[in-house]
Protein backbone atom coordinates (compact mmCIF):
# COMPACT_ATOMS: atom_id res chain seq x y z
CA UNK A 1 0.00 0.00 0.00
CA UNK A 2 2.87 2.51 0.19
CA UNK A 3 2.44 3.12 -3.54
CA UNK A 4 -1.28 3.88 -3.20
CA UNK A 5 -0.51 6.29 -0.36
CA UNK A 6 2.27 7.90 -2.36
CA UNK A 7 0.00 8.35 -5.38
CA UNK A 8 -2.58 10.03 -3.16
CA UNK A 9 -0.06 12.44 -1.61
CA UNK A 10 1.66 13.23 -4.89
CA UNK A 11 -1.63 14.58 -6.23
CA UNK A 12 -1.48 17.30 -3.57
CA UNK A 13 2.11 18.32 -4.37
CA UNK A 14 3.26 20.98 -6.83
CA UNK A 15 5.88 20.09 -9.46
CA UNK A 16 9.39 20.25 -8.03
CA UNK A 17 8.26 19.68 -4.44
CA UNK A 18 9.78 16.81 -2.51
CA UNK A 19 7.75 14.12 -0.77
CA UNK A 20 9.26 12.18 2.12
CA UNK A 21 7.78 8.71 2.54
CA UNK A 22 8.16 6.64 5.67
CA UNK A 23 7.54 2.93 5.23
CA UNK A 24 8.20 -0.39 6.94
CA UNK A 25 7.46 -2.46 3.85
CA UNK A 26 10.64 -3.95 2.43
CA UNK A 27 9.08 -4.15 -1.05
CA UNK A 28 9.40 -0.38 -1.24
CA UNK A 29 13.10 -0.78 -2.10
CA UNK A 30 12.12 -2.33 -5.42
CA UNK A 31 8.70 -0.74 -5.91
CA UNK A 32 9.58 2.91 -5.51
CA UNK A 33 12.36 2.95 -8.14
CA UNK A 34 10.05 1.07 -10.54
CA UNK A 35 7.22 3.47 -9.84
CA UNK A 36 9.43 6.54 -10.26
CA UNK A 37 10.81 5.22 -13.54
CA UNK A 38 7.29 4.68 -14.89
CA UNK A 39 5.89 8.00 -13.67
CA UNK A 40 8.90 10.23 -14.37
CA UNK A 41 9.14 11.43 -10.79
CA UNK A 42 12.68 11.70 -9.48
CA UNK A 43 13.83 9.29 -6.80
CA UNK A 44 16.32 11.29 -4.72
CA UNK A 45 17.21 8.78 -2.01
CA UNK A 46 16.19 5.68 -0.10
CA UNK A 47 17.48 5.53 3.47
CA UNK A 48 17.18 2.32 5.44
CA UNK A 49 17.38 2.07 9.20
CA UNK A 50 16.31 -0.86 11.40
CA UNK A 51 13.87 -2.20 8.85
CA UNK A 52 12.30 1.23 8.26
CA UNK A 53 12.61 3.19 5.08
CA UNK A 54 12.72 6.88 4.35
CA UNK A 55 12.27 7.74 0.68
CA UNK A 56 12.66 11.13 -0.96
CA UNK A 57 10.85 11.81 -4.24
CA UNK A 58 10.78 15.01 -6.27
CA UNK A 59 7.59 15.52 -8.23
CA UNK A 60 8.26 15.81 -11.94
CA UNK A 61 8.03 19.09 -13.82
CA UNK A 62 8.74 22.58 -12.51
Amino acid at each position, binding site marked *: *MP*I*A*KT*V*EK*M*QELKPGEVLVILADDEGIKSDMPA*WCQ*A*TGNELLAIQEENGKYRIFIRKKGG
Partner: protein
Amino acid sequence: MKDKMTLILFSGDLDKALAGLNLATAAASMGIEVVIFYTFWGLNILRKGKSLTKPKGLKRKLFGIMNKGGATKLPLSRFHMAGIGTEMMKQLMKEMKFPSIPELMKLAKSLGVKFIACTTTMGMMGLTKDDLISEVDAYAGAATYLANASQAKINLFL
Protein backbone atom coordinates in the same frame (compact mmCIF):
# COMPACT_ATOMS: atom_id res chain seq x y z
CA MET B 1 0.17 3.99 -27.43
CA LYS B 2 -0.58 3.83 -23.73
CA ASP B 3 -0.20 0.46 -22.01
CA LYS B 4 -3.47 -1.02 -20.89
CA MET B 5 -4.60 -3.39 -18.13
CA THR B 6 -7.96 -4.99 -17.52
CA LEU B 7 -9.15 -6.67 -14.35
CA ILE B 8 -12.16 -8.92 -14.00
CA LEU B 9 -13.32 -8.48 -10.43
CA PHE B 10 -15.50 -11.55 -10.09
CA SER B 11 -15.09 -11.81 -6.35
CA GLY B 12 -16.85 -9.61 -3.80
CA ASP B 13 -14.41 -10.52 -1.05
CA LEU B 14 -12.70 -7.73 0.84
CA ASP B 15 -9.21 -9.17 0.39
CA LYS B 16 -9.55 -9.74 -3.34
CA ALA B 17 -11.11 -6.33 -3.92
CA LEU B 18 -8.21 -4.83 -1.96
CA ALA B 19 -5.65 -6.63 -4.10
CA GLY B 20 -7.40 -5.65 -7.33
CA LEU B 21 -7.89 -2.00 -6.46
CA ASN B 22 -4.34 -1.68 -5.14
CA LEU B 23 -3.04 -3.00 -8.45
CA ALA B 24 -5.40 -0.79 -10.43
CA THR B 25 -4.33 2.40 -8.63
CA ALA B 26 -0.64 1.53 -8.91
CA ALA B 27 -1.03 0.80 -12.63
CA ALA B 28 -3.05 3.95 -13.32
CA SER B 29 -0.47 6.07 -11.49
CA MET B 30 2.23 4.52 -13.68
CA GLY B 31 0.46 5.72 -16.81
CA ILE B 32 -1.31 2.47 -17.61
CA GLU B 33 -4.91 2.72 -18.79
CA VAL B 34 -7.02 0.56 -16.47
CA VAL B 35 -10.45 -0.99 -16.92
CA ILE B 36 -12.13 -2.95 -14.13
CA PHE B 37 -14.97 -5.23 -15.17
CA TYR B 38 -17.13 -6.00 -12.13
CA THR B 39 -19.16 -9.17 -12.47
CA PHE B 40 -20.95 -11.68 -10.22
CA TRP B 41 -20.01 -11.10 -6.56
CA GLY B 42 -17.75 -8.27 -7.66
CA LEU B 43 -20.91 -6.23 -8.32
CA ASN B 44 -21.38 -6.05 -4.56
CA ILE B 45 -18.40 -3.68 -4.45
CA LEU B 46 -20.31 -1.25 -6.67
CA ARG B 47 -23.57 -1.50 -4.77
CA LYS B 48 -24.93 1.27 -2.64
CA GLY B 49 -25.46 0.24 0.96
CA LYS B 50 -29.16 -0.30 0.57
CA SER B 51 -30.93 -1.59 -2.50
CA LEU B 52 -33.41 0.90 -3.86
CA THR B 53 -35.25 -1.31 -6.28
CA LYS B 54 -37.34 -4.24 -5.17
CA PRO B 55 -36.13 -7.39 -6.95
CA LYS B 56 -38.78 -9.11 -9.01
CA GLY B 57 -39.75 -12.66 -8.14
CA LEU B 58 -39.31 -14.78 -5.03
CA LYS B 59 -35.93 -16.24 -5.97
CA ARG B 60 -34.37 -12.83 -6.53
CA LYS B 61 -35.99 -11.46 -3.37
CA LEU B 62 -34.52 -14.24 -1.24
CA PHE B 63 -31.22 -13.86 -3.01
CA GLY B 64 -31.27 -10.13 -2.30
CA ILE B 65 -31.71 -10.84 1.41
CA MET B 66 -28.77 -13.24 1.47
CA ASN B 67 -26.45 -11.29 -0.79
CA LYS B 68 -25.78 -7.96 0.89
CA GLY B 69 -23.81 -5.38 -1.02
CA GLY B 70 -21.83 -2.21 -0.43
CA ALA B 71 -18.10 -1.49 -0.48
CA THR B 72 -17.96 -1.22 3.31
CA LYS B 73 -19.72 -4.55 3.88
CA LEU B 74 -17.47 -6.95 1.97
CA PRO B 75 -16.48 -10.15 3.81
CA LEU B 76 -13.03 -11.73 3.85
CA SER B 77 -12.60 -14.78 1.62
CA ARG B 78 -11.22 -16.68 4.62
CA PHE B 79 -11.76 -16.26 8.36
CA HIS B 80 -14.83 -14.09 7.96
CA MET B 81 -16.22 -15.92 11.03
CA ALA B 82 -19.66 -14.32 11.00
CA GLY B 83 -18.03 -10.92 10.65
CA ILE B 84 -15.61 -11.12 13.58
CA GLY B 85 -12.57 -11.96 11.45
CA THR B 86 -13.45 -9.31 8.89
CA GLU B 87 -13.92 -6.67 11.58
CA MET B 88 -10.51 -7.55 13.03
CA MET B 89 -8.91 -7.25 9.60
CA LYS B 90 -10.53 -3.84 9.06
CA GLN B 91 -9.22 -2.59 12.40
CA LEU B 92 -5.78 -3.94 11.59
CA MET B 93 -5.90 -2.13 8.24
CA LYS B 94 -6.78 1.10 10.04
CA GLU B 95 -3.90 0.67 12.50
CA MET B 96 -1.52 0.01 9.62
CA LYS B 97 -2.93 3.06 7.80
CA PHE B 98 -4.06 0.94 4.86
CA PRO B 99 -6.61 2.70 2.68
CA SER B 100 -10.12 1.24 2.83
CA ILE B 101 -12.02 -0.06 -0.22
CA PRO B 102 -14.02 3.17 -0.64
CA GLU B 103 -10.78 5.21 -0.34
CA LEU B 104 -9.05 3.06 -2.96
CA MET B 105 -12.04 3.33 -5.27
CA LYS B 106 -12.02 7.11 -4.93
CA LEU B 107 -8.29 7.18 -5.66
CA ALA B 108 -8.76 4.86 -8.64
CA LYS B 109 -11.45 7.13 -10.08
CA SER B 110 -9.29 10.22 -9.60
CA LEU B 111 -6.58 8.46 -11.63
CA GLY B 112 -8.99 7.71 -14.45
CA VAL B 113 -9.63 4.00 -13.81
CA LYS B 114 -12.77 2.91 -15.68
CA PHE B 115 -15.45 0.87 -13.91
CA ILE B 116 -17.66 -1.37 -16.04
CA ALA B 117 -20.60 -3.19 -14.45
CA CYS B 118 -21.62 -6.50 -16.03
CA THR B 119 -25.20 -6.19 -17.19
CA THR B 120 -25.62 -9.94 -17.63
CA THR B 121 -25.06 -10.67 -13.94
CA MET B 122 -26.94 -7.53 -12.91
CA GLY B 123 -29.99 -8.97 -14.64
CA MET B 124 -29.57 -12.32 -12.97
CA MET B 125 -29.22 -10.80 -9.52
CA GLY B 126 -32.05 -8.35 -10.04
CA LEU B 127 -29.79 -5.30 -9.74
CA THR B 128 -30.50 -2.08 -11.63
CA LYS B 129 -28.37 0.99 -12.29
CA ASP B 130 -30.08 2.63 -9.31
CA ASP B 131 -28.57 -0.02 -7.03
CA LEU B 132 -25.04 0.87 -8.09
CA ILE B 133 -22.88 3.86 -7.24
CA SER B 134 -22.60 6.72 -9.73
CA GLU B 135 -18.88 6.05 -10.30
CA VAL B 136 -19.74 3.30 -12.79
CA ASP B 137 -18.60 4.47 -16.23
CA ALA B 138 -20.33 1.88 -18.38
CA TYR B 139 -22.81 -0.97 -18.29
CA ALA B 140 -21.86 -3.77 -20.62
CA GLY B 141 -21.27 -7.47 -21.16
CA ALA B 142 -18.65 -9.98 -22.20
CA ALA B 143 -18.04 -8.59 -25.69
CA THR B 144 -17.13 -5.15 -24.31
CA TYR B 145 -14.76 -6.74 -21.83
CA LEU B 146 -13.12 -8.80 -24.58
CA ALA B 147 -12.78 -5.79 -26.86
CA ASN B 148 -10.91 -4.03 -24.02
CA ALA B 149 -8.87 -7.09 -23.07
CA SER B 150 -7.70 -7.75 -26.60
CA GLN B 151 -6.03 -4.30 -26.59
CA ALA B 152 -4.44 -4.78 -23.19
CA LYS B 153 -1.10 -6.30 -22.26
CA ILE B 154 -2.18 -7.24 -18.75
CA ASN B 155 -5.47 -9.03 -18.14
CA LEU B 156 -6.23 -10.43 -14.70
CA PHE B 157 -9.11 -12.31 -13.12
CA LEU B 158 -9.77 -11.96 -9.42
